[in-house]
């Protein structure tokens, strides 16, 4: 058994930022465990630009953004293991991992930071009827084939779901000579960023069919086509709107699921809405000393926010190891009226930073609405928003001074209001 102060599970953007933050906050006894053969996570296959506008004030590609953190990890001499799969974490923070050279490696950690990221929803999760031929890919898998492996998934493409990876892949495949026939989105709005709809679809005349879904897959061996139907307000296909679209490939960009199988093994409490751990203001999970950040916690829209969040988790892991957490009453943050969830879900004022950033997504599109914060029954924030959409993460700043001014505060409510 090896002893380490802090073990970081996953060397993607969240893990890298968490590790650097641990180091900068004074703890060097850290190790990153990464299952892939390089650090950087999914950024390595995101060769498009648009990363780092907030963090570095410039437009980087995914690999460039990752490289800034990786070189810092190298410069600081932070320890990491590649090709290393964590197969178990228990609530006592013993981490079991395996790789080809070390075999089974067990580490007793004082603190753990979960940064495992997320995975794509598969066709099965959608229950799309039809055959099960070759030619159905999740958008991220197709991205890996094109950008890393150097192969095309097909020539005539239909994309189901307008998540960001799907939009990015519509452009990428078009640039590589494929015909992207349409992007179908079952919802009346896109799940992706506005800028991606403009830059990846509109600029290439790729139609975005809102309120449309794929209702059947054809082709016994390889995809030969799909049936596309319009859906009603209950997202049920409308009879008579079926359109057969010939294609050899169906790409799915239908949502991301935080990968919390390990968190569950450690008995970390999972939030049903985010599919990620429930965390407090320090990004501490229900198991003391286990922290979470990045897409394993909730699916982000921009990597910059992942890095910021992970840095906070790193800082707090160091604080935890140093025994600096103060007990205290936790104020509940309630998500209401169109706010689907909040991260964090509670704030203990004794451990809160000067400002706490509360991140969340709305459950629907709202135009010219207000984002409001109530401290118990008192409205303290009333922000006019031209548009709120589920595709973009929102945030609210909670300054610490609010708590000092209101020692009996029980609940913070964040909601969308019409006026």
């Amino acid at each position, binding site marked *: 058994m090896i002893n380490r102060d802090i073990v970081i599970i996953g060397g993607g953007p969240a893990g890298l930022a968490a590790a650097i933050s641990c180091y900068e906050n004074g703890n060097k006894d850290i190790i990153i465990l990464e299952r892939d053969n390089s650090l950087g996570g999914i950024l390595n296959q995101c060769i498009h630009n648009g990363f780092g506008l907030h963090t570095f004030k410039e437009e980087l590609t995914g690999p460039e953004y990752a490289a800034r953190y990786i070189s810092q990890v190298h410069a600081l001499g932070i320890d990491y293991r590649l090709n290393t*799969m964590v197969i178990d974490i228990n609530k006592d923070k013993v981490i*079991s991992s395996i790789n080809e050279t070390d075999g089974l490696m067990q580490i007793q950690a004082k603190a753990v930071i979960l940064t495992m990221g997320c995975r794509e929803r598969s*066709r099965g999760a959608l229950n799309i009827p039809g055959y099960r*031929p070759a030619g159905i890919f999740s958008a991220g898998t197709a991205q890996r084939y094109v950008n890393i492996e150097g192969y095309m998934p*097909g020539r005539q493409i239909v994309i189901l779901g307008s998540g960001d990876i799907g939009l990015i892949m519509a452009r990428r495949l078009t640039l590589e000579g494929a015909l992207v026939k349409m992007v179908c989105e079952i919802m009346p709005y896109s799940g992706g960023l506005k800028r991606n709809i403009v830059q990846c679809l509109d600029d290439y005349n790729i139609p975005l069919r809102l309120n449309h879904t794929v209702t059947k*897959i054809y082709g016994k*061996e390889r995809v030969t086509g799909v049936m596309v139907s319009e859906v009603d307000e209950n997202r049920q296909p409308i009879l008579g709107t079926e359109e057969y679209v010939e294609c050899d490939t169906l790409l799915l960009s239908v949502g991301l699921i935080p990968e919390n199988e390990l968190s569950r093994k450690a008995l970390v409490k999972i939030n049903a809405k985010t599919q990620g751990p429930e965390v407090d203001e320090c990004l501490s999970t229900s198991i003391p000393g286990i922290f979470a950040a990045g897409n394993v916690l909730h699916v982000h829209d921009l990597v910059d926010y992942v890095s910021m969040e992970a840095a906070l988790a790193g800082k707090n892991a160091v604080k935890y190891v140093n025994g600096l957490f103060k007990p205290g009453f936790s104020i509940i943050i309630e998500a209401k009226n169109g706010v689907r969830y909040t991260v964090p879900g509670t704030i203990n004022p004794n451990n809160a930073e000067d400002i706490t950033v509360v991140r969340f997504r709305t459950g629907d599109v709202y135009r010219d609405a207000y984002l409001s914060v109530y401290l118990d029954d008192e409205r303290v924030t009333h922000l006019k928003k031209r548009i709120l959409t589920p595709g973009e993460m929102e945030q609210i700043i909670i300054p610490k001074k609010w708590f000092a001014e209101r020692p009996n505060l029980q609940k913070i409510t964040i909601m969308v209001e019409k006026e």
Partner: protein
Amino acid sequence: MVYNNNEISVYKGGMVMYDIVIIGAGVVGSSIARVLSKYDLKIAVMDKEADICEQTSKANSGIVHSGYDAHVGSMKAKMNLRGSKMMESLCKDLDIPYRRNGSLVLAFSKTDLPKLEALKDQGDANGVEGLQILSTEEVLLMEPNLSNEVTNALYAPTGGIVDPFKLTIAQAEVACQNGVEFKLKTKVIDVEKHDDYFIIFTDKGEFKTRILVNAAGVYADDVNNQLSAYKLKITPRKGEYCLFDKQVGNIVDKTIFQLPTALGKGVLVTPTPDGNLLVGPTANDIIDKDDISTTAEGLKSVIDRARKSVKQIPMGFVITAFAGLRATEQNGDFVIGEAIDVPNFFNAAGIESPGLTSAPAIGEYLGAMIANRLNAIEKSDYIKTRTDTVRFESLSLADKANLIKENPEYGKIICRCELVTLAQIKDAIHRPLGAKTIDGIKRRTRAGAGRCQGGFCSPRVIEILAKELHLDPREVAKSDSNSVMLIEFDKDSL
């Protein structure tokens, strides 16, 4: 492997003469091949698909039925009972997952109690051991997640679950290691009866055989009807299923049936030997013998009907849906044995449910009959057991550590969801009748069978298949040569 030189087993006009040719490399064909492989005979198994276990055998419930369903005295009853009895020791020999988890048939109204009792009487008459009628309280004590609407249930402690892929593949491997030739991607076009042999015309040439065995699944009527005046008619009866994440695999422990209907055993809810939850099947007679597409109505009906049995069906945890075809013969029973008007032509036709359970028994029954016909002699070097690919995920930490020490490739995880290692995938490729396709790897190792359905591992599986089989990645297919996954960049051809 040395064959005895049966006088006829020589080349005649360029055509190989076999003692036995089995058409169909599903679970039935593989069972028959395994049993006959212990004799000194020249045997071939032919299948149109690129792998064994490609049709009905790959898409069914994976249930070892206890045997109360089949009519007393029927071939189904006989084979079911025998198969159920054989299964445990056979699975031990084959080193494959099997669990006797028991089954329950639920009734939802007191007026159904007589039907349940009739089922029990039929089971008792068939020789099923330990059948018991339970009250609501007893049922819910056993399975707390079942619906409160349950009024009674028939409990069959001998019911079990088995991995249907492994039951097929493992038996084929045993046959193969004992010298049976597997001619895959070989489509039988025609069969012709001669005085003391048959000629089989295939897309890969012609073959002669003294004994012909028909285990052609939904196509078994086509084969039979070319030779026999006693025509069969097999209707594909489609069954659709939903498979759920292992996280919800323990909602039920036993296999949960509802009272059977005219079309079959109804929708069941069961754990699988690997810990998933399986719900299905529907039962719809169709025409196209290759139509294994799922339908919106079918999947909805599966879930609606399963909701009757179980309090909550965790729809958020569905990982895939699939459909399979039962080979339903019009007379309702298995057709097993020598055709009355065609000596040396043996049918294993109409093998619908409980076909998986019955397969080992059908192998034993027909095997004995055919060996007797040929006066076959048992080989001295027959090997009845085989070792499965390591199931890494289920090993203890210490066993995992030791294995990696022996072979570091057990330390390289390829499939994250099911914890499948490089060593397992290479073993699946290089063992007898090894995997050549992505689906073949999935069925042998479970790589790609988990919650992400190959999202993460399929690029790596393609890479490993290409490397080990000396293929270009663009030649690696999902299931056959028309199901390739990747193509080249347009720029490559510039």
